[in-house]
């Protein structure tokens, strides 16, 4: 059965091709069945793989499917092959499961869009690439998926390119991600030239070669750079809030549930490498914790519903990084899975609100929507509660586990995580109380509001059930998911044993559990008093904070800083090269180089009058420099 894993890729691949080339002839009716259908089939295959793995003993839950021999360079070769193990199947289940629901939702949401078929071609392509990423058995194929999802993401962010802001956001996402991708590409080259293989199994088995060569720190830090780009961590998170310009199902699927978690997945997959590079792992945890806190403060000050959720996603991804950074890989993946459910749910519910209010997203214009949109309200409430970490919902269990591991590593990380948890509860419930409770603030909008069609509400209900139940696979001390995933990360088992022995007493865990539950409830209560009972509190808080509040409201001015420091100078440099150097001549460049070149440049300007002469001078200049270097050497 495991040998048929490639079927998971085949269905969305066929879907992409058929919709891309025959989409217009097929019509909306066929596409609305075909596109979700291919993802459902992939989901079915994933379930069968999962069931097969369950039936095997733990040490045999690792299967590689070689599709074909891909490349050889000398003794080195890479196959196009898939890896089926606990981690990849878990990821595949999340991707196809959530992906299917979002496809169904999109059928309703995108119904009137003129580029309906193109949208679903991109969506199926995304599923294909995401599955490639998580099922790859080597870094190269992972990189293929990595670039592929980036491409799909950029195409979908800029899907409504008539809006300049959407086109800009797409470009921004692409460029920022390239910075991260460059890290991954370099990491792959280092691994290749050191270990001589890119297959996960080989690389992890020979990880000590990387240590011996002294590049393990470089490799893991480069991977971290890649992960911060793809998973929107400090300092490369800037593209994600803008990515909300894309259609809402895209935000839910790509920018909340799946693609942005790729960095977490890769870090967890490379556990064997990060275990050997404690400094890099500490950086991962530190960046995760910092991002979690930082993004949570920004989320508090946003008024755009989708942007609140975007910053919340960044913050939650920070939690996942914190988890994998402190070595709690299984907890990180667990939080990834529960987050996929509740965050997709929140985004889709936000999309439903948007649908009802004709695209309005400013929560200060909404109010009392629970009267008009009951299904949306209840599902959103469940999602927000899960996000806030209200006890007995999925977010509670997974977040608590992360905090528990953080405590063992460093109480400082734990404290940051706890403060973030409190902030999370406040902004999560703020985004519930302000739009859904109180009095309608804009009568016209309120009057026209209407509940969404079943194609949209049914996925909401299914995801809400998931958001409640997903946590129960990871209840402390009964944790199924940890036992399931753990063999992937600690194949030797020795490291895990060592870590277990050092665990503090059990009562500490229960106390911490209680503390985080209380913090979440307190945050929710504060939000209730501040945004429902006594609505003057936020203003008072803002006034008392003064400049800090302004800083937060303006997202710490990071976008402006990037424009000033990086984007503008680069553009000017390009202008200068295109304009000055090649048009007016090499004067500038020549002057920039000292000594003989400077003298030649001076002579050149006196002697030189025509363009061909200038070109010839450039050749001569190169010749002199080259010969001089080779003679002196």
């Amino acid at each position: 059965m495991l040998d048929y894993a490639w079927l998971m890729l085949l269905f969305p691949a066929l879907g992409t091709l058929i919709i891309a080339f025959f989409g217009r002839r097929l019509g909306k009716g066929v596409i609305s069945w075909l596109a979700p259908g291919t993802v459902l089939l992939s989901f079915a295959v994933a379930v069968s793989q999962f069931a097969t793995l369950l039936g095997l003993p733990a040490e045999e839950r690792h299967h590689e499917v070689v599709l074909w021999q891909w490349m050889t360079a000398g003794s080195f070769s890479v196959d196009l092959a898939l890896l089926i193990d606990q981690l990849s199947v878990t990821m595949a289940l999340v991707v196809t499961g959530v992906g299917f629901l979002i496809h169904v939702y999109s059928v309703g949401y995108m119904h009137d869009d003129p580029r309906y078929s193109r949208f679903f071609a991109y969506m199926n392509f995304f599923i294909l690439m995401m599955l490639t990423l998580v099922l790859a058995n080597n870094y190269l194929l992972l990189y293929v998926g990595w670039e592929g999802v980036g491409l799909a993401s950029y195409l979908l962010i800029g899907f409504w390119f008539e809006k300049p802001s959407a086109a800009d956001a797409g470009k921004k996402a692409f460029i920022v991600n390239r910075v991260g991708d460059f890290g991954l590409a370099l990491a792959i080259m280092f691994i290749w030239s050191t270990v001589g293989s890119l297959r996960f199994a080989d690389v992890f088995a020979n990880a000590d070669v990387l240590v011996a060569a002294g590049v393990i720190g470089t490799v893991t830090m480069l991977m971290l750079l890649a992960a911060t780009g793809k998973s929107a961590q400090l300092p490369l998170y800037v593209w994600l809030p803008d990515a909300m310009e894309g259609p809402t199902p895209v935000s839910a699927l790509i920018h909340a549930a799946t693609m942005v978690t790729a960095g977490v997945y890769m870090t967890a997959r490379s556990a064997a490498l990060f275990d050997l590079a404690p400094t890099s792992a500490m950086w991962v945890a530190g960046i995760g914790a910092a991002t979690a806190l930082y993004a949570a403060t920004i989320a508090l000050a946003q008024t755009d519903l989708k942007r609140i959720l975007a910053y919340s996603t960044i913050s939650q991804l920070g939690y996942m990084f914190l988890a994998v950074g402190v070595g709690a890989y299984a907890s990180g993946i667990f939080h990834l899975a529960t987050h996929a459910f509740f965050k997709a749910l929140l985004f889709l519910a936000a999309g439903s609100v948007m649908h009802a209010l004709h695209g309005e997203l400013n929560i200060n214009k909404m109010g009392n929507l629970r009267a008009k949109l009951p299904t949306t309200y209840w599902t959103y409430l469940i999602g927000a509660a899960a996000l806030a970490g209200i006890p007995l919902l999925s977010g509670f269990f997974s977040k608590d586990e992360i905090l528990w591991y953080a405590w063992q590593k460093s109480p400082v990380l734990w404290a940051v995580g706890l403060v973030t948890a409190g902030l999370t509860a406040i902004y999560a419930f703020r985004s519930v109380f302000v739009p859904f409770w109180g009095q309608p603030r804009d009568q016209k909008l309120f009057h026209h509001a209407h509940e969404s069609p079943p194609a949209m509400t049914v996925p909401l209900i299914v995801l809400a059930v998931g958001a409640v139940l997903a946590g129960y696979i990871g209840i402390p001390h009964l944790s199924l998911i940890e036992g399931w995933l753990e063999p992937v990360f600690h194949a030797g088992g020795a490291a895990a044993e060592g870590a277990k022995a050092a665990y503090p007493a059990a009562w500490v865990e229960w106390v911490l559990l209680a503390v985080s539950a209380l913090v979440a409830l307190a945050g929710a209560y504060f939000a209730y008093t501040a945004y429902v009972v006594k609505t003057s509190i936020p203003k008072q808080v803002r006034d008392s904070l003064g400049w800090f509040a302004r800083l937060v409201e303006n997202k710490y001015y990071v976008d402006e800083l990037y424009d000033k420091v990086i984007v503008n100078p680069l553009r000017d440099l390009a202008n200068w090269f295109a304009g000055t150097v090649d048009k007016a001549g090499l004067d500038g460049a020549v002057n920039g180089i000292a000594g003989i070149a400077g003298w030649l440049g001076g002579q050149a300007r006196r002697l030189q009058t025509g363009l061909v002469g200038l070109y010839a001078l450039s050749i001569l200049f190169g010749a002199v420099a080259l010969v001089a270097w080779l003679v002196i050497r």
Partner: protein
Amino acid sequence: MVPISYYLILSAILFTVGVVGVLIRRNVLIIFMSVEMMLNAVNLTFAALALHFLSLNGQIFVLMAMVVAAAEVAVGLAIVMTVVRHKDTTNIEDVNLLKG
């Protein structure tokens, strides 16, 4: 007997004169002649070296280089003619549509 290095230095000087000619002249035909001067300077080197090594190869190279130079003249003049047809000038500065 004149030492071989004299030949080599003379040809280096001739080559440099050719290079400078290409750099400072604006008339296409004179630039062209300067290029020919560079090639002939090299021919002098080859001929001198053929004598030095007592090898026929160097002299064969001179012949080959001369053939190449002749072919270049034919092609070059034809190209100059096409430009002159459009724009009645042999000043290289006047032919400047492509840039940037």
